């Protein structure tokens, strides 16, 4: 057991650091916890990713023929750690890199792969994932956006929602219903959609935390050529599972913190504890201690998953526990951070204008919902890890058009 890099990992890390240093002036840097608005900083974010891609640090585990480096998931994780350390913000195309790209690699045609993948890595095109709808969140296969065949095209009508980055995206992977007479999972088909096509309307949604990272997207008679289909008609669910499996690898994996880091809480406590009354300090230290323990428990569990990757394994369903644990820790860390503000904790920002802890607090409910709600993750763990049976379902085999009734 050791927490050091292997010699190969250490030399790769050194390489990454030197690349980040060499190109520092061309990269966007932000303060820890500073929000980065994709719309207002779109150009800088795209440039940053392009520079990193040209230096070979984007899509590291992708095959070389698609613009990747043929590297490992561990190398990818190391790049992520070093970007965080250098305070380079999350890559603008993280949805494309983590989810859309792998789906195109697995299910796209040669023509789609050659047209899309290299540009995706360079952020020449930004991608989004058009899955959730107003009537289908956790129950994704209940989606209603329809695609109807018309000659060489499909005509799409419907609405997607909670679509991260749609407001800056050039392309999206779009899950549609093409056969409502088949059971819900069997009548779906996946496409690549041009977000600039006529009939696509994007409206940003403002979150309870104040920012606007995601959107609702309307499709009105949008025509998609059949050549932009991913997988066979009716195979959309299987294609979507590729995307979702990659999402699970991307979120809450290898020891990265989901919310504010334990180090940021510690620094904040060092700053703020002395200003509290002695009896408040006792309680605040309890809250800080509890939050740090939860954070460290999630972090070191992530290190075990990282070790699995490092030994060539893939994360199993137990990786869902990483997001659950990370979310629980994020909640405690944000709460302790706010409580340390003392009397100012009831305001939206402190007197000096800093609102980072208030923002972290208002972001936590979103973490517990996005990328698998806490409840869906508990079902996955209960069923696939503990072997408990699923709740009975009445809608699985009936035609979707019957509304789930047999």
């Amino acid at each position: 057991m050791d927490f050091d890099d292997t010699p190969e990992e250490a030399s790769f890390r050194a390489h990454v650091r030197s690349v980040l240093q060499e190109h520092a002036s061309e990269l966007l840097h932000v303060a820890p916890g500073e929000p980065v608005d994709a719309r207002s900083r779109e150009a800088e974010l795209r440039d940053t990713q392009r520079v990193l891609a040209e230096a070979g640090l984007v899509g590291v585990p992708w095959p070389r023929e698609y613009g990747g480096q043929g590297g490992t998931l561990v190398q990818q994780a190391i790049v992520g750690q070093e970007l965080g350390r250098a305070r380079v913000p999350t890559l603008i195309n993280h949805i494309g890199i983590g989810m859309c790209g792998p789906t195109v690699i697995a299910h796209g045609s040669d023509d789609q792969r050659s047209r899309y993948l290299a540009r995706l890595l360079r952020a020449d095109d930004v991608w989004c994932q058009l899955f959730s709808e107003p009537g289908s969140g956790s129950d994704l296969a209940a989606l209603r956006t329809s695609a109807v065949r018309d000659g060489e095209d499909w005509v799409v009508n419907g609405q997607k929602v909670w679509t991260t980055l749609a407001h800056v995206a050039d392309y999206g992977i779009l899950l549609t219903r093409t056969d409502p007479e088949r059971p819900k999972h069997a009548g779906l088909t996946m496409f690549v959609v041009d977000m600039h096509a006529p009939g696509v309307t994007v409206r940003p949604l403002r979150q309870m935390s104040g920012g606007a990272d995601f959107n609702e997207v309307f499709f009105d008679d949008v025509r998609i050529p059949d050549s932009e289909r991913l997988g066979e008609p009716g195979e959309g669910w299987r294609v979507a599972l590729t995307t979702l499996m990659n999402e699970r690898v991307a979120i809450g994996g290898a020891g990265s913190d989901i919310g504010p880091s334990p180090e940021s809480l510690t620094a904040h406590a060092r700053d703020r504890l002395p200003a509290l009354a002695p009896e408040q300090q006792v309680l605040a230290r309890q809250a800080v201690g509890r939050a740090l323990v939860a954070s460290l428990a999630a972090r070191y569990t992530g290190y075990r998953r990282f070790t699995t990757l490092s030994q060539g394994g893939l994360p199993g369903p137990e990786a869902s526990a990483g997001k659950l644990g990370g979310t629980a820790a994020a909640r405690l860390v944000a709460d302790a951070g706010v409580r340390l503000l003392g009397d100012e904790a009831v305001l939206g920002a402190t007197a000096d204008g800093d609102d980072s802890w208030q923002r972290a607090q208002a972001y936590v409910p979103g973490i517990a919902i996005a990328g698998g709600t806490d409840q869906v993750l508990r079902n996955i763990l209960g069923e696939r890890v503990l072997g408990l049976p699923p709740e009975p379902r009445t809608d699985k085999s009936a035609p979707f058009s019957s509304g789930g009734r047999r």
Partner: protein
Amino acid sequence: MNFDLSDDQRDAAAGAREFFTGSVPLSAARAALEGDGVPAPGRKALADIGFLGITVPESAGGAGGSVLDLAVVAEQAGAVLAGPSLVTAARAAVLLEGAPDLAAQLADGSAAIAVLDGPVTGSAPSLDAADATLFLGLDGGALVVGEGEVTPGRPMDATRGLASVRMTSRRVLTEDAGELWARARQVGAVVMAAEDLGAADRAVLMGVDYAQQRQAFGRVIGSYQAVKHMLVDAWVGVDQLRSLVWWAAWAADDSPAELPLAAAAAKAYGAEVAERATETVVQVHGGIGFTWEHDAHLYWRRAKVDRLLLGDAAEHLDAVARLAVAGALG
């Protein structure tokens, strides 16, 4: 990074599981609670298989192993509520670093040693003191060894062998032993977290087994999300506790500067996880889980006792916060 057990440690865990499963029926914990027996497997069996000397140096007749080696065995001991505790062996091995003759007697079981918490003139209820004959204590900053008068109270968890002790003879082993004492207590806290890990893990398994069989309203209760999610939360706690136990045990040998914070984190989290898991197993069983005949309360008792031994969560959470603020997280 390689944050995983070695093959040798996995083999040791498998061997320990076999030993404890074969030598410690849960009926032993029950009999001890009813005043009708002693904790199993007992000191002699633990000494004979070498578990009391895992961290005792080879020169003193031990295995010269690491705290992590001991922790993987302790997890298996916790799973069956074995007694006496490997916490005592771990803590005494640290305290006896300068007394190889006594360390040898610890390892071979020829001395029944317990470590006292609180004043040596009248200790707090201390682990494995009930059947011990030789006591280690902290007396005015010095580590002392000697005999004592033992007063066990009515047990909540008889496998812990708790008793108050008034030392009747005292010999100084180490002057100015404050730091040594603190380190021994931290190592003890890590090993207790490992035993809690084993107990919590077993409690979750018991709950899952029952939830797969018991039917209500026409289907097994584990299919209901209300039951499933309780078990999952308990399991996630166990999975994360394993990470903290491994980290803290590793730190004890390989990164002593991290030990105080890691040990406090593991102990505080272990207390919480064991309590949640054992309360969950009672609840999942419903009425039968509340009966004296069912084994669930034996695990529940272990959790309710352990959470207060070697410092409660409030003490350890405070330590984590203080150490972090003082720079322990880097």
